[in-house]
């Protein structure tokens, strides 16, 4: 009975609403949420987590010596956990908290204040929204993978507690502000009109620059250039690289925020650019040293994925092949020539691949987005104009990240000491930092 009584006024209210809304269709259409989009974003979010664990962890783990395998897996795992907790407590607010500052998001959404299951986040289509929780979670995985990328540069010699402290500071003062600058509608770089579809500057250039600085400030591994430091498991490295490729579809297509045609463009570009990059790296190796190596193919794969990241939503599939190949060539030159010439020990080539690949990708986005080259830029698209904007965005990122990283590495070094003791380093970080061994013979 009660129910029946209560239904009647509701129905009456509904018909009144319908009559009212006929006159106000645009206002109501402004809040369309699609279950397909939501499901797609949930899946994309999980795919990006899969990139970190186990993808990146195994990719990096295979590249170090067996005595340091667990240290890399552990650093990657712990960084992911720490950044997730930071992200929901204040990171999301600092990046997307709604402040009008061009540099950071403010305190508006500390502890996810005000966010409920009904909150929504805008997409690239006017009037189409997704649940805010999935946007928060998706962005959270990006915040987690970026510092996890950095650790490859000083693998095998860093002190565990110190690097965790560094990561907490670095995401706070470098990552969150740059994410705000690039992706928030009020952000400095966003307002310049720079294109960064899935985080070429925020994730890859950012991680690459911090990595280069870290590798120089922490110093070379003991025995660098003298001892055998070859990867201990190329098998795991390829397994990890392939998982990164699979996860990257969440990273790139998911950055479209909607499951529509533009997301499929990002998807096919994530195939073609990577394929072009693998072929390019292997061809270069075949010509220059007579043999194409497995590690080369895996490196080309990552270089291509990094290069296409900022461009995934705006270049065409053919342009993507070229951009991937260019990224590969640039990264090859850096890891095999420049690094050896300068003699810094970027152990797993984080700068050489993510930094350089990210820069080539960001600038290449300006070029290959042109409709003349199969991109999606409008008829009035200016390659010179957009490329200049892209370069400005890269320079701002390098400057912010560079200065921030130098200060934070120094600070952590003074307080904790960044480097493991000589004895610990020689013994291997698995035993000395974590009290366990990856392999037992």
């Amino acid at each position, binding site marked *: 009975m009660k129910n029946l009584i209560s239904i009647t006024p509701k129905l009456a209210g509904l018909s009144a609403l319908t009559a009212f809304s006929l006159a106000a269709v645009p206002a109501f259409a402004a809040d369309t949420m699609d279950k397909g989009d939501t499901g797609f974003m949930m899946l994309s979010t999980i795919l990006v987590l899969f990139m970190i664990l186990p993808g990146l962890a195994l990719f990096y783990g295979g590249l170090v010596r067996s005595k340091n395998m667990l240290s890399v897996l552990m650093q990657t795992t712990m960084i992911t956990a720490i950044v997730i907790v930071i992200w929901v407590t204040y990171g999301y607010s600092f990046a997307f908290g709604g402040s009008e500052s061009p540099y950071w998001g403010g305190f508006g959404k500390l502890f996810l204040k005000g966010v409920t299951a009904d909150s929504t986040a805008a997409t690239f289509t006017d009037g189409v929204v997704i649940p805010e929780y999935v946007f928060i979670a998706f962005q959270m995985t990006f915040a987690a993978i970026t510092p996890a990328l950095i650790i490859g540069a000083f693998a095998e010699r860093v002190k565990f507690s110190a690097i965790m402290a560094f990561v907490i500071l670095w995401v706070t003062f470098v990552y969150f502000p740059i994410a705000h600058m690039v992706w928030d509608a009020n952000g400095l770089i966003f307002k310049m009109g720079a294109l960064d579809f899935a985080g070429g500057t925020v994730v890859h250039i950012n991680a690459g620059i911090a990595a280069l600085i870290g590798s120089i400030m922490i110093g070379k591994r003991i025995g660098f250039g003298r001892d*055998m*430091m*070859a990867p201990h498991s190329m098998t795991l490295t390829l397994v990890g690289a392939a998982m990164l490729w699979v996860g990257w579809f969440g990273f790139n297509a998911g950055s479209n925020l909607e499951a529509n045609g533009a997301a499929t463009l990002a998807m096919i570009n994530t195939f073609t650019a990577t394929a072009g990059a693998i072929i390019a790296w292997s061809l270069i190796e075949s010509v220059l*040293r007579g043999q194409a190596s497995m*590690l080369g193919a895996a490196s080309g794969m990552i270089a291509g994925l990094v290069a296409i990241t900022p461009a995934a939503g705006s270049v065409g599939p053919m342009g993507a092949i070229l951009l991937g190949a260019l990224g590969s060539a640039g990264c*090859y030159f850096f*890891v095999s020539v420049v690094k*050896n010439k300068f003699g810094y020990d970027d152990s797993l080539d984080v700068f050489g691949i993510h930094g350089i690949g990210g820069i080539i990708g960001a600038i290449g986005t300006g070029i290959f987005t042109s409709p003349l080259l199969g991109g999606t830029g409008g008829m009035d698209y200016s390659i010179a104009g957009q490329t200049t904007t892209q370069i400005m965005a890269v320079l701002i990122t390098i400057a912010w990240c560079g200065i921030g990283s130098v200060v934070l590495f120094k600070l952590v070094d003074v307080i904790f000491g960044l480097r493991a003791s000589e004895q610990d380093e020689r013994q291997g970080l698995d035993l000395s930092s974590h009290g366990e061994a990856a392999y037992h013979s």
Partner: protein
Amino acid sequence: MKIVMAIIKPFKLDEVRNALTDLGVQGLTVTEVKGYGRQKGHTEIYRGTEYAVSFLPKLKIEIAVAADDVEKVTEAISAAANTSQIGDGKIFVWDLEQAIRIRTGETGVEAL
């Protein structure tokens, strides 16, 4: 009795084993070892960084044989392990004082 110890290329093990089985050799012991000889090592390149690998993986096989069989056995190993390339390995022979089969307590040539 003699011990015949040979250092060979790992991929030659099956051929050596077959050759020895054909001779009637009843057993051998194989160990994975690393070392260098005149072949020295080689270099491996990882993303442009060269590493000198100075100890190469080889297999060490050890066979206890009656003194009369030594020549046949060493010839069989030489023939089977030969690739005519540097790094094929070496064979060493030395005297064996005693052999005992644990299960039965047999000694000497009977135990081989």
